[in-house]
């Protein structure tokens, strides 16, 4: 592995300009990519999104840029990768240096304009949502991989070689003829990485690559990163969580409020004694440390036996998506496929004879690998999906006849994608939506404010929901559910996209909801998290629910 990169500290950002001058090509440790950002401001923003950030990356080096949600990680990553060309979305004062070419920006009209295609050959970027990088115009994984090469005019034979090689590296050999839209989440992320690395860029930047990957997916990704490092690619991972792989990084750069607050090798930053300690080090609390959560927290005592009907009861629930139509034509198949949640291959049963009883005040975690049908299970709680056999009872009432909007008064469901659930133009209106019909206007205002306080968003009450950082969006979606004080609280992967602060708020909110008598069911692939919060842990595998 290459030498650790020397990354300058925030103090000397102004004179970091020696990076390009005094080193020549071929000298080991010479950075392939470097940036000195005095300031970057979006066109709409009053305050800079980034300030005094100086980073550099040597060939074959491994850097983790850690920061909470909203700390400016993604902005930095996109700037480095040429995805936010200065002048287009915002104004940059500072420099970018790539493969020996140095571009100076001062935010004026004479600034150089980055050629994104040429830049992309040197720096690959994989955003948080891997689905959004797909071209949407290629019918198979192989063609999708080749898209960039086609545009560069690569000969067909060379393309075939490159596609084979990349697919091998990614473990996608068996998927080459599949429709990209039908890949699983982990495969999709590997395809997105493949699309960027097929042209062999010397730098690869990945934004939150571990979010929503299960253990198997994360292991695959770690192997891939090590392969790339061996080949001399500089790998940069942006993350709000210290994933085990990041402990191997040469350098950690900690971002907070758009500026670098610490940087250096992980050992010097509290990474060495992560197990057991509460991670004092130099990492802000907002950066998650999954390792420390696993060991801590003894299992909670379950609440005592309850009188009356259980808050939620599933009796012999089975479910299968309707059998696919057998038209031979692909466009038709896509239509059919698209209206599914993608949790299962068509036709096979997703849930088989599931029995579940949750008392009020009880917290139940359901775990299982990606694609096991966990989200499908949750969608039965409020009638979004109707079981093919069996019944769902909420507080003793069969919900099969009621419209979802009515059942929602008793069952609060938090989805994985917060943005699907948010639609109002201010945070406060978002939380207040529908409350006055439920509890009357006076009570509604009080509850809305209380719910916002519970998730730490009271100050943002008049902001636009879509402009919040990802973690805050999740919390806002949670607040909209909490404000209704439902008898059953069902959370789909609540930890995804939350930073450390957000996680603490989630824990507190779930705990107090349960203490007030809500039955909580949360679905997560993060067993460590499940252990810390739940009274009971169940696994969903092969359509059956079992005690873990």
């Amino acid at each position: 592995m290459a030498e650790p990169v020397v990354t300058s500290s925030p103090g000397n950002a102004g004179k970091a300009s020696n990076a390009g001058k005094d080193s020549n090509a071929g000298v080991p440790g010479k950075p392939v990519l470097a940036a000195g950002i005095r300031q970057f401001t979006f066109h709409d923003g009053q305050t800079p999104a980034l300030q005094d950030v100086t980073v550099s990356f040597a060939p074959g080096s491994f850097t983790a840029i850690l920061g909470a949600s909203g700390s400016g990680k993604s902005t930095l990553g996109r700037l480095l990768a040429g995805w936010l060309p200065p002048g287009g979305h915002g104004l940059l004062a500072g420099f970018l240096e790539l493969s020996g070419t140095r571009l100076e920006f001062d935010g004026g009209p004479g600034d150089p304009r980055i050629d994104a295609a040429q830049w992309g050959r040197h720096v690959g970027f994989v955003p948080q949502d891997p689905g959004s990088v797909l071209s949407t115009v290629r019918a198979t994984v192989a063609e999708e991989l080749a898209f960039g090469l086609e545009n560069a005019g690569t000969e067909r034979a060379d393309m075939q070689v490159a596609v084979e090689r990349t697919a091998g590296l990614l473990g996608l050999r068996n998927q080459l003829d599949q429709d990209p839209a039908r890949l699983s989440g982990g495969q999709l992320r590997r395809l997105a990485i493949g699309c960027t690395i097929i042209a062999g860029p010397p730098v690869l930047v990945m934004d939150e690559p571990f979010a929503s990957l299960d253990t198997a997916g994360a292991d695959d990704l770690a192997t891939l990163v090590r392969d790339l490092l061996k080949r001399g690619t500089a790998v940069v991972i942006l993350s709000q969580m210290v994933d085990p792989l990041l402990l191997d990084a040469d350098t950690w750069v900690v971002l907070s409020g758009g500026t670098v607050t610490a940087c250096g090798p992980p050992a010097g930053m509290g990474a060495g004694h992560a197990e057991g300690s509460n991670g004092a080090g130099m990492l802000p609390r907002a950066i998650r440390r999954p390792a420390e959560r696993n060991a801590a927290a003894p299992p909670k005592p379950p609440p005592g036996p309850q009188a009356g009907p259980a808050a939620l009861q599933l009796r012999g629930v089975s479910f299968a998506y309707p059998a696919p139509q057998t038209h031979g034509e692909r466009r038709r198949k896509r239509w059919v496929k698209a209206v599914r949640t993608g949790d299962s291959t068509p036709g096979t049963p997703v849930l088989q004879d599931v029995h579940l009883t949750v008392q009020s005040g009880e917290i139940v975690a359901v775990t299982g690998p990606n694609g096991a049908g966990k989200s499908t299970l949750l969608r039965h709680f409020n009638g979004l999906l109707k079981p093919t056999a069996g019944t769902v009872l909420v507080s003793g009432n069969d919900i099969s006849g009621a419209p979802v909007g009515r059942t929602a008064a008793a069952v609060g469901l938090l989805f994985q994608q917060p943005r699907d659930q948010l639609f109002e133009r201010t945070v406060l209106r978002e939380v207040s939506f529908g409350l006055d019909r439920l509890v009357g206007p006076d009570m509604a205002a009080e509850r809305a404010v209380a719910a916002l306080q519970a998730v730490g968003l009271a100050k943002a009450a008049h902001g636009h929901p879509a402009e919040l950082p990802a973690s805050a969006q999740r919390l806002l979606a949670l607040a909209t559910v909490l404000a209704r004080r439902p008898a059953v609280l069902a959370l789909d992967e609540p930890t995804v996209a939350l930073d450390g602060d957000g996680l603490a708020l989630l824990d507190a909110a779930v705990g107090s909801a349960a203490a007030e008598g809500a039955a909580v069911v949360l679905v997560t692939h993060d067993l460590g998290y499940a252990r810390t919060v739940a009274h009971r842990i169940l696994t969903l595998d092969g359509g059956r629910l079992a005690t873990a």
Partner: protein
Amino acid sequence: MSSPSLTLPSQERPAARRRLLEILGALAIAATYVYLVLNQPADITGGPGSASALIALTGFLAGAVLLIVAVLPTLPASTLVLIPVALVLNIVLGQFVGSTLVPFYLDAIGTVLIAVLAGPAAGAATGALSSIVWSFFNPTVLPFAAGAALIGCLAGLAARYGLFRRFYLAPVAGFATGIIAGVVSAPVAAFVFGGTSGVATGAIVSAFRAMGDTLLAAITKQALISDPMDKAIVFTIVAILVYALPRRARQQFPFIRRHRVLAGTTPAADARAQGPAQDPVQGPAEGPAQDSTRKG
């Protein structure tokens, strides 16, 4: 080492050839319309397969294709990628509304949205492309490509000259656009189809025919009833959508920044209730100042 340059040339100007194609396209559409209107009385009894149908089809289609050829290569990737999204909105809403008994179409929401976000040229190309791609499922919309392009272009001009800055002006602009678009599209309906494709619109046409109007006159009158209302609704919906977008999403479009298409920097003007401009000083003062320097 630094193989091809990492930067683009500092100035790009639209090639004269593209400008010429745009003008040719517009001319083709205008000339076709004028010819059809002048020659229509002799033609309606000429029966189907008439020369007029052919001229309407070729003239309007050629105009639309010329516009696409002129505009499409000049669009930045951010606009190009939005066009398919706009087409889906057009097609889904258009198919849905067309199947109901409402005498509206609502098949231009995507086109107008692009026009407001990215300008008249992009709007015109989107309109024309919308008809062509939609004809993949429904070939009868193909001849209306020129009319759809015109709607996109006019919507973009309305945005360019600030008609979306005041919320109440958007439906007015839509109404005017509808009048022009309706009049231009009427000959297509008359000569190519001999009527309209919708049941509700067909009933209106037959009412005018019953009063003894020529087919073109009846269809033009029907268009003057349906189209302005339809476009007023469409422009209003688009205004609501655009003002509901968060600032950063709006400001990423250079057209919006450069021409200050939208009022204020208030993150959300629920335009119906409170009117758009709450904070007229801060945002606009910043936007144009930066842009005028960059336009150079």
